[in-house]
Every structure is written in structure tokens, then in C-alpha cells.
């Protein structure tokens, strides 16, 4: 069993449809909904409601406002597509507390494994490529991560305002399925959201890194 390949994908439509993958690029039903995340250049970005699909990455970027009280879910979620210099919206991301089409959606973000694993893959978030610390402003706000995710490989969350689990290094992470990835490979799905509390301090630039961890032999 060799190291399986992993492709990260995101759904750019409001159609909650499974990526019927045939290989990591996908060519089956619904594949037009999905795009491959360019791991060399792209990144996720959370913005306010003013940001729109197709906006240029060189134009105005509207940050998530810090609320006066309580917490605010990031209204919109995008992928910063470097190759086209545009922001591609992921409209099904997040919960109904956002200002797009988030909610009880199943097929939003995808990790496609091309071969088998010997453990269920985890989804984790870290500060950097060392995968040793998770203490940036978003992952450690008074010991609490502001980034939450929920595995949806087998079912939608079951609620439009799903709580999910905070992502913070190996302290808090999610299993993406209920069984190991089989020999033929498999697409695993999740949704995620960022919530900003009133106690948050504005950041000029802080990034967290998503990571999947698994066993093979």
C-alpha cells in the first residue's frame, strides 16, 4: 500500500451534489460543480458580505467585521484563485448564520484519496508547515479555535446551524469518515466556518493551514 494521493476540492455552486469522482480531477455527474484547489498557490479566505464571486484578488478585500458583542460567523467563504486572480465563492460553506447559502449541506469541501488508508483520515488546522503549533490568532483565541468543521461524508450535518468541532492542531480535530479509505479510493466531505468574537483583535495577516493526517503501510 503506497502513500495515497490526496486532492482538495471545493464546490463553487449552490448545488449540494456529490463529486462523482473518476480520478482526482473527476469526470462524472456533478463534476462541473467542483474545482481542484491549487495547493501551490490558492488559499481559503473569509470575508464580509460585500465581497462577491469573481472579485479580483487585486481589488478591495472586505474583511469580516468584529462584532460589538457575541460572535459573528464569517458571512462569506472564498478560494483565492491565484491563477485567475479572482475570488471563487464557496456558497454552501458555513451555517445559516452566514450570509450565503450555508446550512444543512453535505457536499461543500472534499478530500479525494486515490488509494487506501489504514486509519480514518483526520482534518486538522496548524500554524505552518511544521505542524507543531496551533497558536495563531484564529486557532488560539484564549485557548479556543475560531475555525470549526464538521464531517459530512455519510450525512449532512442535520441542522442548518451545525456546531461542528473546533480545529486546533492535534488537540481538536475531526475524523472525516466512519471507516478507513478503501482500496479504490474515496471522496471524503466536510464543511467549515469561521466565527469572530467581539473580543477578537484585528489581524493584518494571519493564516492557518489545513492538514489531513492518516496511516498507510
Amino acid at each position: 500500500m503506497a502513500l495515497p494521493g490526496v486532492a482538495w476540492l471545493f464546490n463553487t455552486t449552490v448545488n449540494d451534489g456529490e463529486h462523482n469522482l473518476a480520478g482526482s480531477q473527476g469526470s462524472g455527474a456533478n463534476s462541473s460543480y467542483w474545482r481542484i484547489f491549487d495547493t501551490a498557490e490558492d488559499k481559503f479566505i473569509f470575508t464580509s458580505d460585500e465581497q462577491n464571486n469573481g472579485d479580483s484578488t487585486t481589488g478591495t478585500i472586505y474583511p469580516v467585521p468584529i462584532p460589538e458583542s457575541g460572535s459573528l460567523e464569517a458571512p462569506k467563504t472564498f478560494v483565492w484563485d491565484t491563477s485567475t486572480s479572482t475570488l471563487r465563492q464557496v456558497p454552501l460553506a458555513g451555517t445559516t448564520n452566514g450570509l450565503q447559502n450555508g446550512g444543512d449541506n453535505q457536499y461543500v469541501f472534499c478530500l479525494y484519496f486515490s488509494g487506501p488508508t489504514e486509519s480514518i483520515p483526520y482534518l486538522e488546522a496548524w500554524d505552518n508547515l511544521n505542524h507543531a503549533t496551533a497558536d495563531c490568532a484564529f486557532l488560539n483565541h484564549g485557548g479556543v479555535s475560531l475555525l470549526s468543521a464538521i464531517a459530512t461524508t455519510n450525512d449532512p450535518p442535520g441542522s442548518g446551524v451545525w456546531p461542528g468541532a473546533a480545529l486546533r492542531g492535534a488537540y481538536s480535530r475531526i475524523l472525516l469518515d466512519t471507516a478507513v479509505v478503501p482500496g479504490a479510493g474515496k471522496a471524503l466531505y466536510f464543511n467549515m466556518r469561521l466565527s469572530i468574537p467581539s473580543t477578537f483583535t484585528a489581524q493584518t495577516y494571519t493564516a492557518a493551514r489545513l492538514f489531513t493526517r492518516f496511516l498507510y503501510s
Partner: protein
Amino acid sequence: MSLFWKLQIEYEKNKTHVTEDVTNKSRVWSSFRGRDIKSIQMILPPSQLTGGRKGFIHFQGYELYNFQIEAGWDLQAGLGKIMAFWFRGKVPCKPVSENIRVMFDKNGDFLIDKHNLEFGKEWGGTAVEGWKEGVPFNKFFCGLFAEKGDRIHEPCR
């Protein structure tokens, strides 16, 4: 050719198989016969843990054995990365597994930690695959040893 990072599997009747360097990401454990295993062992490069001498991980006498590579893919790196090796042995007649994890640090050295876990719940409370049958006996043990056979860590029980 490096002597290190090769998994050695000793079967009953003194047959032994040695894998390629497991760090090359190819098939390792899953390509070997799954029964009658007496011991598994891997020779490790000199490290601070072993006083600058060659070391080896050794498991012997367990009811079941397992060896796995912990790997990960970063969203913004685009390449798989080996994070650690796991050696596992199921204690004879008990629902417990003894596990040693060998991790790499950023200086090229390695660290180990040991975990006694409920059998079938080795990965965040979920099961791992790939167990192979051993030849259990009472004097089962595992540990990190240095060249010349000095035990560096006490057996994990």
C-alpha cells in the same frame, strides 16, 4: 545503501524478511505474509536518544503485530509528508495494544513516545487496519534499544 529504516520481520522457523527503506513511501507492511510472526524490528540511525549509537525498535512475543506510516497532506504544500512510524503489538489474551511512535524532528533526529491503548481504538478511539498474526508467548516485550543490546527505554507495560 542505507542500513536504516528497514523493517525486519522474523517468522517462526527462523525465516526473516527485510523490507526496503520504509521512508521511500512504497509498499512495506502490507506486502508481507500475515501470520507466524515472532518479532519485528527496525534499525535506526544514531541519535541523541541512543547516545550517538545505532538503535533499534524491537517487538517480540505479541499476539498481533502492526506497522504503519503516519502521513499527511497539507492544503498548501501539495505533497504528502511522512510524519512518523507506528509499531504496534497486541498483548496476548488482553484487549490492549502496546504502541511505539517514532517521530522525526526538524533537525533530522527522531523522538519516540509510547502508548498503551485499548485494542481496536488506536487512532482517536477508532480501529486501525493491517494487523498480522504473531506467535504469542509470555515474555512479550517492546522497546528502543541501542547497539550492543542495551535497553534504552523500559518495556511499555
